[in-house]
């Protein structure tokens, strides 16, 4: 029993496979109808056992059904020839060489030598295109010749070359076929269809095009199929009956008054006729007349079963709902008879030909070479390993280079054998073409499969129906142009902004505020900055907000721009924005926006923008307070850069409610022992830090701190700069004298500035008080000042002395000088040595001195106007006197020396 079950199962499986693979069998050139009939019979017989067999063999019904459903549509899912184009560079500049590379796929032989690559090139400017074939118009043939010339000669210059007419010295022709192949245009080409080296099948070359809507492959045939080769209707339920039908459209006043539009709709096309009753529209599928009540429609071979032809009137009332249906009209005539009986299909090479010559005929004479610009003495002018005529035919020409000009467009059509075999019982494969954009059918144009009609041939004694259509690929080339710039140019510029300092500070007093510098950088710019247009916008806001309503533009205020020192806000190459933060009023936040625009040679503007929000600190101290170890109060509060003395210990404190402090001194963590001051920090840094200032005059310290706000946890970083200075003292007069006037500077617009002396004063009457100004003013301990007046030491030791004018004669000059030594207290110096390793020798005293002179009494002759020279002389009398004295002495010596020399050897007088 088990044995018979197994036999039964095998037969059932065989039948099952036959049934469910019927569609596949059809695709494999077995007739559909025969296979289906057999499968149906077998199914009836074996179905009971089928279930047993499937169970025995663990065959899932659902899985099998899925597979067979897939196989049903296999015939429409083949991989069609494709070609992709890549350009290098992807964004060419005018005058730059650009190379297009074609990647062909799904051909039977994708080695490039086996395919025909026909390039065509069109320039935007009509004057740059050439009527190469001299036919009076510039058309696709000229575009092909333009490209294939460049490709064949590879840029070789033919100037000065002699071409000898019909000679072919370099023997660079190409031809393979012994017999001339069928060629719709030129029957002298001896290059096989589908690629070099392809043998002509027994049934002849078969060229196909695919309908991407229904997925079928149509053999390209000329005209109509012979009536003898038309498949029977019963065998072709997909096709309607051909013929010419008369639709009686009475009641639908076509071409009558008031109604001027009627629509004829078929399964494939929809045509609208207007009041052109006398016009006759003819196309491949329809031949119809517009008469008063008669409309003749030629029924095409529609594909979809049950396709109807309907005629609709404009006023589509219920009564005039159209006349629909195939054969509704009375057939009044036969369609045009055809004569195609299944011989070789229409195959046409698309490569160009020189006028009066044929590419691929095996002869490439000098005259032909002259047309293509190739070297008559070199069989391979472009040195690509392929001879010249083969290059013109595009054999293996998968790359094409030319000098790019703005608006250039390029196209390519690749001819080769596809991987899809024909239905004929020979070694033939469908010869097909690939276009970069796969535009093989453009509705409303001549590009597309026309006059679809199957034909029937007998193959292996079986009738086989093959879909066919009229198709001219040449009409589709213009719908497959490729612009090298398509999709390659990013339109957006990536802009990034950065700014410094990181914690800018505004000083509302009008001076010493930070210089805010905002820099922009472009990531994908292709030109230099001078060709990029920048436009800056500055807005202020009181809070960090993304809502545009919370920002107010201030850059449009001329007063603001003047106060901030901003000259320009927009211009070419304006990649940096600088503004002085010395503004009387400024909110806490600035939003800086930059819009950039770049123009390149392709005249495509690339734009980009970026914004940044900057927190602005106000005040001088950025929140950090300094105290010196010698001064109990805060120091340099109003100074942007805090000046401090060498060998000083400072305490920095951060104002505000913060936690989690991280102090840095010159970028390094201040994790050293907090010596000196007794500051309890525990195991972490606090809001206060002590540190010594040790270095040379001019050195700077950058004190920065990062902390978190106690309430919001927001991180904040701020910093201050300390600069080491020498302690110094400058004498001045607070009352009783004024600086000596030296002259006046006159500016270009007439404003005058007085030039006064810094160390010469003239008494204005009364007592003169001289003060010593110490720098830094918080110097502690205050040094004792030793005053000297006219060489005599005074008793006062303070920072000022008073001179009584009565003690000095009028006009006399009093010399006042002061000396002071600054040194820190011993305790501070000991602290420096003990805790900060600063030797006491380094913290020794520093001497400060200065001197001035005061001329007592009335002012001497003021050097103004006409008495300027006299005043100059008298005021500088001592200097001039010394000069004259020097001159006199030189003169005397000058006379003395020669006299002495000449006196030697002179005879003495007796």
């Amino acid at each position, binding site marked *: 029993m088990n044995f018979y079950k197994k036999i039964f199962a095998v037969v059932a499986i065989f039948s099952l496979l036959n049934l469910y693979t019927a569609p596949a069998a059809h695709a494999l050139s077995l007739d559909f109808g025969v296979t289906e009939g057999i499968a149906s019979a077998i199914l009836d017989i074996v179905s009971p056992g089928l279930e047993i067999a499937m169970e025995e063999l663990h065959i899932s019904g659902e899985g099998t059904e899925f597979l067979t459903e897939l196989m049903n549509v296999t015939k429409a899912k083949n991989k069609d020839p494709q070609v992709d184009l890549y350009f290098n560079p992807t964004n060419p500049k005018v005058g730059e060489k650009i190379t297009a590379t074609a990647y062909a796929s799904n051909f039977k032989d994708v080695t490039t030598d086996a395919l025909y690559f026909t390039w065509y090139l069109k320039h935007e400017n009509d004057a740059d295109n050439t009527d190469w074939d001299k036919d009076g118009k510039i058309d696709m043939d000229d575009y092909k010749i333009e490209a294939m010339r460049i490709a064949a000669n590879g840029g070789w210059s033919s100037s000065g070359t002699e071409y000898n007419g019909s000679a072919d010295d370099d023997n660079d022709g190409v031809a393979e076929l012994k017999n001339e192949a069928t060629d719709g245009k030129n029957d002298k080409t001896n290059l096989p269809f589908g690629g070099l080296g392809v043998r002509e099948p027994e049934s002849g070359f078969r060229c196909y095009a695919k309908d991407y809507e229904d997925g079928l492959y149509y053999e390209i045939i000329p005209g109509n199929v012979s009536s003898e080769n038309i498949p029977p209707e019963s065998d072709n339920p997909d096709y309607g009956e051909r013929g010419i039908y008369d639709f009686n459209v009475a009641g639908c006043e076509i071409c009558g008054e008031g109604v001027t539009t009627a629509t004829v709709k078929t399964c494939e096309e929809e045509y609208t006729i207007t009041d052109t009753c006398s016009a006759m529209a003819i196309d491949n599928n329809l031949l119809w007349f517009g008469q008063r009540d008669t409309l003749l429609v030629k029924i095409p071979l529609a594909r979809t079963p049950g396709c109807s032809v309907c005629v609709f009137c404009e006023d589509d009332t219920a009564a005039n709902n159209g006349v629909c249906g195939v054969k509704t009209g009375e057939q009044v005539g036969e369609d045009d008879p055809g004569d195609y009986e299944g011989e070789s299909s229409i195959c046409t090479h698309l490569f160009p030909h020189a006028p009066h010559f044929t590419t691929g005929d095996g002869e490439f004479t000098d005259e032909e070479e002259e047309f293509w610009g190739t070297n008559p003495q070199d069989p391979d002018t472009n040195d690509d390993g392929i001879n010249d005529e083969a290059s013109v035919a595009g054999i293996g020409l998968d790359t094409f280079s030319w000098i790019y000009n703005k608006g250039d467009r390029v196209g390519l059509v690749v001819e080769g054998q596809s991987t899809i075999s024909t239905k004929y019982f020979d070694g033939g494969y469908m010869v097909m073409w690939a276009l970069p954009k796969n535009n093989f059918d453009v509705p409303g144009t001549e590009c597309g499969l026309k006059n679809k009609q199957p034909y029937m041939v007998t193959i292996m004694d079986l009738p086989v129906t093959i879909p066919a259509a009229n198709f001219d690929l040449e009409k589709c080339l213009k719908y497959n142009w490729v612009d090298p710039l398509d999709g390659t140019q990013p339109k957006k510029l990536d802009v990034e902004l950065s700014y410094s300092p990181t914690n800018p500070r505004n000083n509302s007093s009008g001076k010493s505020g930070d210089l805010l510098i905002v820099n922009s950088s472009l990531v994908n710019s292709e030109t230099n900055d001078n060709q990029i247009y920048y436009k800056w916008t500055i807005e202020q806001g009181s809070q960090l907000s993304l809502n545009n309503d919370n920002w107010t533009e201030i850059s449009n205020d001329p007063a603001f721009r003047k106060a901030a020192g901003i000259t320009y806000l927009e211009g070419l190459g304006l990649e940096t924005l600088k503004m002085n933060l010395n503004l009387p009023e400024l909110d806490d936040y600035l939003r800086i926006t930059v819009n950039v625009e770049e123009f390149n040679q392709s005249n495509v503007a690339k734009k980009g923008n970026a914004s940044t929000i900057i927190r602005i600190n106000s005040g001088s101290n950025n929140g950090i307070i300094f105290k010196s170890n010698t001064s109990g109060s805060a120091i340099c509060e109003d100074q942007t850069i805090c000046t401090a003395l060498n060998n000083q210990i400072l305490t920095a404190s951060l104002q505000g409610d913060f936690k989690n402090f991280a102090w840095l001194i010159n970028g390094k963590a201040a994790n050293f022992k907090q010596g000196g001051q007794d500051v309890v920090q525990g195991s972490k840094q606090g809001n206060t830090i002590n540190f010594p200032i040790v270095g040379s005059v001019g050195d700077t310290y950058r004190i920065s701190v990062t902390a978190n706000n106690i309430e919001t946890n927001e991180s904040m970083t701020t910093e201050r700069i300390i600069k080491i200075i020498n302690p110094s003292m400058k004498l001045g007069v607070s009352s009783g004298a004024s600086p000596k006037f030296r002259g006046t500077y006159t500016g270009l617009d007439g404003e005058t500035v007085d030039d006064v002396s810094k160390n010469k004063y003239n008494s204005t009457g009364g007592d003169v008080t001289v003060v010593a100004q110490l720098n830094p003013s918080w110097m502690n301990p205050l040094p004792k000042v030793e005053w000297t007046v006219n060489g005599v030491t005074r008793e006062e030791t303070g920072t000022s002395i008073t001179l009584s004018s009565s003690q000095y004669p009028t006009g006399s000059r009093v010399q006042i000088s002061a000396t002071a030594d600054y040194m820190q207290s011993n305790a501070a110096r000991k602290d420096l040595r003990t805790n900060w390793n600063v030797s006491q020798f380094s913290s020794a005293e520093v001497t400060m001195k200065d001197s001035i002179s005061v001329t007592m009494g009335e002012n001497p002759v003021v050097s103004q106007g006409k008495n300027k020279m006299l005043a100059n002389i008298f005021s500088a009398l001592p200097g001039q006197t010394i000069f004259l004295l020097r001159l006199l002495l030189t003169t005397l010596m*000058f006379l003395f020396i*020669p006299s002495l020399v000449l006196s030697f050897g002179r005879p003495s007088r007796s």
Partner: protein
Amino acid sequence: MLSTNINKKELFVTSAAMLACLVLFYSFPTKGSFQEIMSSLTFLFLVPILYIKLILKKNVSDFGLGMGDYKKGFLWGAISLVFVALFILLLSRFENVSKDYRDLFYVSKYFDLFVMREISFGIAFVLVDFFFRGFVMFYFQNIFQKKYFAIFLQFVMFLALLLLSGKLNWSFATQALLSLSAGIIAFNSKSILYSSFFSWISIIVIELSIMKLFFSN
């Protein structure tokens, strides 16, 4: 080349004194216009005169400080003006002359400044003339066998001074020309009065011409 009856020691010392005068004139430290004037007066005029009187023990009239031959003076002066005219013609051919006379541009706007300038030139010419033509040329004309060599000697010395000052421009050419013509006038007229006068006239004419050629609107 040199005369036979010369005192070589005197020649050596005098030559050294001349060079010393020039060096001191060029490099004596001065500050301000007053000191510069005093320095020029001293080393170009006073010191040579004192040297002539006290060291050489000669009469200053032998060194050009006299009336001399006025006929020859005016004759050679007139001839020099012809060369000045040719020089002006030459200047007019060159476009870049104006850049060496930029101060003339400002002077051309103010007549009083022009007068002051030319007066100061006159005074300066007297000093320079006395030193180069009076002191140097008249001394050396008694040294050389061919006396006119002294003209070229003072010319070369003057050129050397100009070169040291680095003034290689059209102004330099003007002064070189005047130096040569003044030497010829002084040599023939035996007086620096005529050479100074005609040098002064020449410089006025030249500067007026430059102002007319290049700075007139």
